[in-house]
């Protein structure tokens, strides 16, 4: 919820946001109508993937940055 509030405040101030969160947070973030949400299939506390898996971290970040650039409200899941 905290990050959902921060996202809304930043968007109001003209700063585009994208949230990277695990599946467990999907319901609470979607209910807050955040503009861009990337849901990842990882356990809580490790939203970008397992420790040491640099390729995965980079893949998740690239997907998040694509959402930022898409220019529309969007939510997606990276497999």
């Amino acid at each position, binding site marked *: *919820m*905290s*990050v*959902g*509030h*921060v*996202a*809304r*405040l*930043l*968007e*109001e*101030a*003209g*700063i*585009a*946001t*994208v*949230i*990277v*969160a*695990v*599946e*467990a*947070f*999907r*319901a*609470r*973030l979607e*209910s*807050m*109508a*955040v*503009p861009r949400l990337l849901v990842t*299939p*990882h*356990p*809580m*506390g*490790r*939203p*970008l*993937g*397992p*420790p*040491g898996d*640099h390729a995965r*971290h*980079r893949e998740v*970040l*690239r997907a*998040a*940055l694509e959402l*930022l*650039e898409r*220019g*529309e*409200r969007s939510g997606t899941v990276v497999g």
Partner: protein
Amino acid sequence: MTTDNSESESFEAFKNSFSYGSRTDLNFKFLKHLPAEDAARFFQDLLWKLGKTLDDADATPLIDHVREWQSRGYAHFTGFTYDDGPFTPLARPLSQSRLTLLTSTGHFVAGHDPEPFGVKEMTQEEAIARIGDFLKAAPDLSPIPFNTPPDQLRVRHGGYDIRGVQADPAVALPLAPLRELQQDGTIGSLTDTAYSFVGATAQTRLLTQSGPAWVDMLRPQEVDAALLVPV
């Protein structure tokens, strides 16, 4: 065989004890939110899959099991509900944009401990024990330079299992990966520092006081976009 039922722990008490109880384990605090029969199924399937791991040493089904049940545990959890929200399109291509990173992971830089409640060198265990106090207090935002060496990062947060970020900060605070994406031109520039706070905090204070102050602090940095990571 005799059993003294008056002293045996109920299953309800057992499953709830993982959430800030006698068996606190932040990966499994969701058990408290599950009906007993669902929690029983969680344990039964976990043990069945663990048995398979004995033979093939493949932990993937165990990890998937935990992840799926964490999602189930929080599937019906909604706190704040809004029908709509503000939306700012990215003003220019990412390769020309200035990005910041803000996480609710509870990181800070060694020597700059926010010292919650005036406590010096609070441990993770103390933070877990004081989760109720954190949830009533306003959050502190810690600036973290993007070039901070991993051995200078500290983390403390009574709401989640910090072992993942301790093993590799990039799993939730991707300083180095974002630097790489800036160096290869994907991102135009990064702010001098990323930011982190303890997400287990007073929501109304965050919304009405701390959050607006953070926006005021970011505005002069001409930030176009923010990557936000909750844990």
